[in-house]
Structure formats: structure tokens, C-alpha cells
């Protein structure tokens, strides 16, 4: 690493792209962890194909992992790519559009043979036909170099070939002056039982690094200094994992045992997988026969006194709707997690979207109010899951927790909270027979008591038929039904008292307010901050609770001339806002299965503000 030409960058965006068998997610994750440990802020965007193993080398099989590394507080996986690693022609073809002009392109040159080009449906070789002239292109014989480095291992050629992703990672480590220890340790742990593989990958990693040293292929290397993040202890955390941890924390804090009823579905399955690992926390995971059984079992567990969860994605939410309504009528705590993906129907299962919001709000028969809370970043899934649990129990209600594929699969450095700093969360089962009635209500929260089976002397029956106020017996009286519908609505509206005032970033009134929810957080924040730096008059707020809306929301909206609501759907939150406040809020829709880039929002802000002039 002799080069003294180390340039310092504020931020850099790197994308690995290759065949889905090439291990791009793995090396992307390693670079993320190394960078995070190094102290950078990071944002990630994995993008994998819908097929388990699409035919090798084809466009359908391309798997990508994008990583944004910053020396400041960053909020997105980056708009445009500074460095692209392309392991084969298909990966190049599918990803080159994202690379900045004059960006760094590193390709595994050996894969650009006739077969590779044909599989990518290319008629000429982009490395030779001028297609990559606009970039700093580095053609590296990665396969050969890897094989050379591994020749002593006794592995056969096909096995050796598998390590070339680590060769590429080694190059990137050189280029960005990253230490290799974390990855080496990771490999040793991961392949503890297959030391040969550990060795091979480590050799390849070192070879990639040395290759750069030796060949002086790159003129410069770069460094991205640690970010000035708030002080504290950090770890890298993915969204779905954060959700799982938030739930376990809620369980531990409240003393309620955790029950998850779930049926696997992309991109929500990892919540099930993660929770299944925590049996020593008393976590009970039940992989049900379908989504209906999953939510039904969770309702049963809630009735029996557990902190009950069900996790799914859009199609599964459809199937759960009838049972969620039972929880509404029975007034039992339940957390329903929807990791949204692109719909309608099966849609694009591996792509992200925010288009289940109105379903979450209204997708049940009758008047069926359910509070809705949305996470906005991977790490924030933790506190959102915790908060959803707290509210579900406090108000004896199902709560819908919305995340999406983008934040669920994404990861970021996470400031580990002190467990004592978590909000107070006590759960109490009613055990006092005196004056007990299953539908008597707490004066403040309007919650009914939670009495669990096994409690002597408080035997009672609940169910999906309308219940008599207080007594909780089946009741067909007209006025009682009217009253109960209204009190159920009032109970949910009442949660507003638990919602803190909205934080506005930027002026408290004025020209333009950007309202966001969920996974648009990073793109909106970055865009608004960029515009604010340019002295544009724009403010933003991000909703955590969508039902009910925070108390001050209407007043805030009315203080702005123009309200813009960017959503990865065709305009859903914006409808709720318009209906509620009669404010002429406008939607900005993108529904490509991809998150917004900051640039897209920035452009729209500029457009609105210049039109206003």
C-alpha cells in the first residue's frame, strides 16, 4: 500500500454486481461491517433476483449490493454509484446505467468471453465497443488471479473460482484503505468446520489486495474518514433483525412472553428466522400452515397472555384481515407486521413499495379502527416495534406496524440503546374479581382489562359478535352497537395522547413542506438538507404514527403554501391527509419497485419552488 496518493472523500457509493451465485450479498455485507466498524456511517441496498438460482450469467440472475459510506451522517444507499464492480457481462449490462460519468468500473475481464456475452444477450463486447469509455475501467483477470493464489489449497478449479468475490473485495479494501481483520475473522468463524474454505477465501482476499499493491493498477487510493456520529456504542443492524430485536426487548421489558405466528413470505421471512434463534429468551415461534392460522394463533396466544405478533407482507395481510377484525372486536393486543413489497397480487416479491397503507387502514369489514405505525430506517425498526408493542398492550388493540422491503433488507450502523433508556412498559393482567367486567374500560386509555385464562373466579367468554358494553355478553341492541362502534373508534383516536409533537426540520411555516412516512426517510432528508444548504425554503417532517395522526399535524400543514408527499405508491398517505384536513397536499409517486433517490426529490423540490416564483 505504497501509494501516497490517498485522497480523502466525504462519501462514496460502491456497488457489487454479479451472478446470484457469485456471493455479492456476502462481500457487500462484509464491506458494510468493516466500514461501520471503522466508524463510517453506511446505508445499504441489496437487490437480488426473484429466482433462487436463475440461469448462471443471465440478466435474470444478476444480484447486486449497493453500499453508501460516509464521513457524515448519511441516510440513503446513495443515488449514483462511484465504484461499480461487475463480475460478468450481465451484471455490467444491468448496472452500468447507475455508474457516474468517470466513475470507477472494475470488471472480471475473463467473464467477457463469447459465452458470457451470449448469456447476457449482448451482441458485442462492451469492454471493446466503446460502451465503457466514459468510465475509469479496470479489467482484471480475477478468475486466474484467484486460482493462482489458491493453487496450494488442494481445491479444484470450480471451488477456487468461487472465491473470486473475495478477490474483488480485497481490491476494494485496498482502494479504500480498509483493514481486513474483521472479514478474516468472519471467515474463520463462518467456516470453522470447513477450514479449507476459510483459508481459500482469506487467500483470495489477500490476493486482491496484493494485486493492487503490486500492479499499481490504481493511481490513487481513497479514504473516507469516520463519521461524526452521536457518541455511543454501535453495531450494524438490518431492518428485519431490528424489528425482531425490538419485539424481544418489549417482551423482556414488559415481562410478557413473546409469541410469533408467521408464515414465510418474502421479504418478511427474516423476522421469523431471527426470532426463531432466540428460544433462550423464551420466544415461541410458530410457523403456521398459512397466514390465517398465523394470525389466528397469535390471537389465541394474546388471549392466553403472551405478547403476540404476526409478520407478513402484502398478500399475507389480505389473508389476515378477517382475523385482525376479530382482534378489533375482542380488543386484544396484537402486533401485525407488514414488510411491504411491490403489488398488486404477487407483484414483484423482491422489490419494495409502500402501497399497503390504505389496506392497513381500511382493509377490514365494518368500522374497524386499527392504529398504524411505520418504521423509516433499518435501525428505527427497533424502536417502532417496541412502541407498537407498548401501545398494543396499553390500549388492548391490534397495531399495524409497517415496514418495507427496502428498510427490512437494508442495514445501518445503530446506536445501541441502554436498556434502561427504553420507554417504560409494564403489562398487567387483571386479577381482581371485585366488580370485574370484561368490557369495562380504563377511564384514561379506554382499554378493557386483560384477564387471562387460568385466573380463578374471572371466567368469561369473548368473541366476534358485537359485545354489550361493560358486560361483554353477546348483544344485538341497536344503540349498544352504535355506542360500541364509536367507543372502539374513540379508543384508537385516543392514542394520540401517546404521540409526541411533530418535529419539523426547517422553517415552521412557509413555502413548501415535505411530508414523509416509512422508507422514504433517507431520500427526503438528504434532498431537503441539500436544498436547505442551497438556501431553498423547504421544510420536512416524517410521520411515525399514521393512525391516529399526531395532534398538531393539521395546524402544521396549514402553515405551508405547498405540501408534497413523496410515496412509493400512487398516492396513499396524501389521500388520508386530504380527507382529514382538507389541505391540498400533492403526491409525488414512484412505483418502480425501487426506493426514491435523494436526487429525484431534490429535483421535484426545485421544480415546485421555481414554479412558485
Amino acid at each position, binding site marked *: 500500500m505504497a501509494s501516497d496518493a490517498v485522497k480523502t472523500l466525504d462519501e462514496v457509493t460502491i456497488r457489487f454486481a454479479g451472478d446470484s451465485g457469485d456471493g455479492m450479498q456476502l462481500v457487500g455485507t462484509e464491506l458494510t461491517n468493516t466500514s461501520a466498524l471503522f466508524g463510517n456511517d453506511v446505508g445499504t441496498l441489496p437487490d437480488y433476483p426473484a429466482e433462487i438460482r436463475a440461469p448462471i450469467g443471465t440478466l435474470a440472475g444478476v444480484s447486486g449490493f449497493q453500499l453508501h459510506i460516509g464521513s457524515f451522517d448519511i441516510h440513503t444507499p446513495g443515488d449514483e454509484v462511484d465504484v461499480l464492480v461487475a463480475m460478468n457481462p450481465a451484471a455490467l449490462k444491468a448496472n452500468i446505467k447507475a455508474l457516474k460519468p468517470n466513475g470507477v468500473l472494475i470488471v472480471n475481464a475473463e467473464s467477457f468471453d463469447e459465452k458470457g456475452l451470449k448469456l447476457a444477450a449482448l451482441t458485442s463486447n462492451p469492454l471493446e465497443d466503446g460502451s465503457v469509455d466514459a468510465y475509469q475501467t479496470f479489467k482484471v483477470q480475477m478468475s486466474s488471479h484467484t486460482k493462482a493464489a489458491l493453487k496450494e489449497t488442494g481445491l479444484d478449479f470450480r471451488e477456487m473460482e468461487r472465491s473470486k468475490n473475495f478477490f474483488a473485495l480485497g481490491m476494494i479494501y485496498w482502494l479504500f484503505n480498509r483493514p481486513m481483520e474483521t472479514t478474516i475473522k468472519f471467515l474463520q468463524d463462518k467456516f470453522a468446520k470447513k477450514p479449507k474454505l476459510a483459508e481459500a477465501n482469506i487467500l483470495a482476499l489477500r490476493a486482491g489486495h496484493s494485486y493492487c499493491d503490486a500492479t499499481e493498477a490504481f493511481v490513487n487510493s481513497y479514504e473516507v474518514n469516520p463519521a461524526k456520529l452521536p457518541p455511543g456504542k454501535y453495531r*450494524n443492524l438490518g431492518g428485519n433483525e431490528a424489528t425482531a430485536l425490538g419485539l424481544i426487548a418489549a417482551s423482556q421489558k414488559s415481562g410478557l412472553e413473546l409469541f410469533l405466528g408467521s408464515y414465510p413470505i418474502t421479504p418478511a421471512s427474516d423476522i421469523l428466522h431471527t426470532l426463531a434463534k432466540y428460544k433462550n429468551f423464551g420466544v415461541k415461534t410458530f410457523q403456521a400452515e398459512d397466514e390465517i392460522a398465523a394470525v389466528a394463533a397469535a390471537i389465541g396466544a394474546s*388471549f392466553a397472555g403472551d405478547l403476540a405478533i404476526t409478520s407478513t407482507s402484502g398478500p399475507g395481510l389480505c389473508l389476515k384481515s378477517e382475523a385482525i377484525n376479530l382482534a378489533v372486536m375482542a380488543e386484544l393486543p396484537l402486533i401485525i407486521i407488514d414488510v411491504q413489497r411491490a403489488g398488486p397480487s404477487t407483484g414483484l416479491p423482491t422489490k419494495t413499495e409502500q402501497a399497503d397503507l390504505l389496506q392497513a387502514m381500511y382493509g377490514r369489514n365494518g368500522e374497524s379502527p386499527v392504529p398504524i405505525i411505520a418504521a423509516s430506517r433499518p435501525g428505527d425498526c427497533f424502536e417502532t416495534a417496541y412502541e407498537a408493542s407498548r401501545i398494543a398492550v396499553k390500549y388492548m388493540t391490534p397495531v399495524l406496524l409497517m415496514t418495507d422491503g427496502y428498510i427490512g433488507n437494508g442495514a445501518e450502523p445503530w446506536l445501541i440503546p441502554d436498556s434502561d433508556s427504553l420507554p417504560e412498559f409494564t403489562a398487567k393482567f387483571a386479577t381482581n374479581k371485585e366488580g370485574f367486567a370484561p368490557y369495562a374500560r380504563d377511564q384514561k386509555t379506554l382499554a378493557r382489562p386483560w384477564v387471562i385464562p387460568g385466573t380463578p373466579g374471572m371466567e368469561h367468554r369473548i368473541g366476534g359478535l358485537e359485545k354489550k358494553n361493560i358486560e361483554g355478553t353477546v348483544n344485538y341492541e341497536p344503540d349498544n352497537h352504535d355506542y360500541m362502534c364509536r367507543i372502539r373508534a374513540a379508543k384508537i383516536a385516543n392514542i394520540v395522547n401517546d404521540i409526541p409533537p411533530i418535529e419539523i426540520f426547517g422553517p415552521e411555516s412557509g413555502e413548501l413542506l415535505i411530508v414523509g412516512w416509512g422508507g422514504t426517510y433517507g431520500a427526503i432528508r438528504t434532498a431537503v438538507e441539500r436544498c436547505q444548504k442551497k438556501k431553498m425554503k423547504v421544510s420536512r417532517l416524517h410521520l411515525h404514527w399514521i393512525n391516529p395522526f399526531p395532534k398538531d399535524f393539521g395546524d402544521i400543514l396549514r402553515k405551508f403554501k405547498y405540501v408534497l408527499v413523496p410515496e412509493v405508491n400512487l398516492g396513499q398517505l396524501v389521500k388520508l391527509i386530504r380527507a382529514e384536513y382538507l389541505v391540498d397536499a400533492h403526491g409525488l409517486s414512484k412505483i418502480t419497485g425501487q426506493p426514491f433517490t435523494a436526487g429525484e426529490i431534490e429535483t421535484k423540490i426545485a421544480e415546485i419552488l421555481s414554479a412558485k416564483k
Partner: protein
Amino acid sequence: MSAVTEAPVIKLTKKDFESDQDIRWCPGCGDYSILATVQRTLPEFSLNKEKYVFVSGIGCSSRFPYYMNTYGFHTIHGRAPAIATGIKIANPDLNVWVVSGDGDSLSIGGNHFIHVLRRNLDLKYLLFNNRIYGLTKGQYSPTSEHGKVTKSSPMGSLEHSFNPIAVALGTGATFVARAMDRDPKNMQEVIRAAHNHRGTAFVEIYQNCNIFNDGAFESLTDKETKLENTLLLEHGKPLVFGKARNKGIHLKGFKPEAVNLDEGKYSVSDLLVHDMSVNDPTLAFIYSQMTEDPGLPTPIGVFRAITRGCYDQDMRTQIAFAKDRLGAGNITSLLNKGDTWVVE
């Protein structure tokens, strides 16, 4: 979290299990007798009322929990087994009973039905089979006979009916039995056996719906014909039936035959001896097929009762094992897991 302190076991009577709710079944409905039999039998089990949970779906039969002075959950159509599964996993100490109808369990709830039997949770499952949808006023159900004329099948149903016991056996159910509303004595024995079984105890109960399907089981319950047309399965005993107890079931290969013991050709020692505990479900399956043959009596009683791991118990064991091996989790270690770094 178990906020519940154990109460001492109290001696109870039938009355203790009667709730204060008015019963809303049609006068004459077979459901009354089942309710009374359950209420009469539970006091035998030396368990306090608060330990019982009755879970039902939707249907006439599914109103059952309202009439039991225990914990109860009248849920949604077809989902009772799934909800009961959650209750039992959350708290394996509860004594959980599912009550359901032929439509509720075998039509909309078919999937949960087969899966609860497969998983063998330790719960009791009473299926009231009246071979009709009662609550929705008389459409044919999956157990209605082929050709049945109902509101939704004015020219006769085109469907072939499920044999609920055969379905249960196909799923690998560990306990399978049949009782009849008009035979409370046998029903009581079956309920006892179900209670004592560790695992999902499935009981089909023939129930007369006198409004929409009156007389569906008349030949089995009518005093005159009952003993000729039914066969009481008693563990360890030869299969004898008939008013005069002069008939029996002989197995020829895997084919059951009804033989006459008076004619001298067969004696009791030629008869099949009932064994509910064989692991192979084939014997029980053979019994299940007897109802398809008009020449054979309909077996009642316990067809099969074998032991196999229960999901809820196994889950408990697995959790205990994990805690043992890894130590009970705590938040701080959870949050600080994996690679961490400090920003100052």
C-alpha cells in the same frame, strides 16, 4: 409472564360449569345433550374451572362456549383450531377444548383441522356433525350425502361426503373417536378418554339438527334399530354387536365382515379384538370404512389412541433446553450482540 397464582383444586359439580347465558339452540337440537354431557363429565377431572378454555368457530355448535362457565372464545368461522393452537402454545397448562361443526371444521376450516391433528397439540376437539349448515339455515355441508336436496342444491348435491374419521386418520391423528348425541353414556366415556389422551383428541359427535336435517342418524339412535346398526369399540374386547349380542366383526384379510355367532360357523374367538393402541393407523382406517358399507354396523367409541410427541410440550422442552444451554436471555446482551464499535 404468569401473573396467575394457582388456586387449590375445588370439587365441582355440573352446575358449576353452567354459565348464566340463555341457550339459543332450537328446542330439540342435539347440541343440548352434548352440552349437558360435557358439563356433567368435566367435574370428574379435578381441575378448576379457570383451567378450561373452550374455543369455537362459527355455527350453531360454535355457540357452545357461551354456555360453559369457563374461559371461552367464540372466534371466527373455521379458525378455532388455529386460535386454540396459539392458546395452548402460549400456556400449555390450560386445558383447551375446541368445539366446532362439520361446516366449520371440514369446509372453511379444513386446513387448520388437518394441521392441528398433524401437529398433535395437546387439546380436545369435538366436532358436532349434523351433516348440514345449521346457522345459515340449511345448505349441504361436506358431510352431507351425495344427492342431498337443500336450498343451495335444489336438484341434489353433486358432492361426495367426507368421512371425517378417515380424513383424521389420513393426517396421522393420534386419537380418533366417535360419539352420538343420543348416547350420552358412550359420549361420556369418549370424553373421558379424550381428556386423558396426551395429544389432539378428535371426537366426531353425530348430532341431530331437527330443523334442517332431522333424522340424519335415526337408524343409529332409534331404540329399535340402534343395537343392530352400531358397534361399540371397547379396547381389548372382541367386536360383538346386535340386540342379542349375537353378531360380530371378523376380519378377512383387511376386509371386515359381519358374522352371526348363532349359526355355528363363527364364535367369539374368531372375532377381531379391538386394540386402540396399535401404532399403525390401518386398523382404525378399516373401522372408518365400515360406515361406507351398508351391511356393516357403524363403530362408536375410541378408534385409535396412541402416544406421540405433542407440539406444545416439545416447544416447552426446546425453550428450556435453549435456556439451559445459552442461559436465559437478557436485553443488554441481546442489544450488544455481534460486532460493535464505539464512537466517542
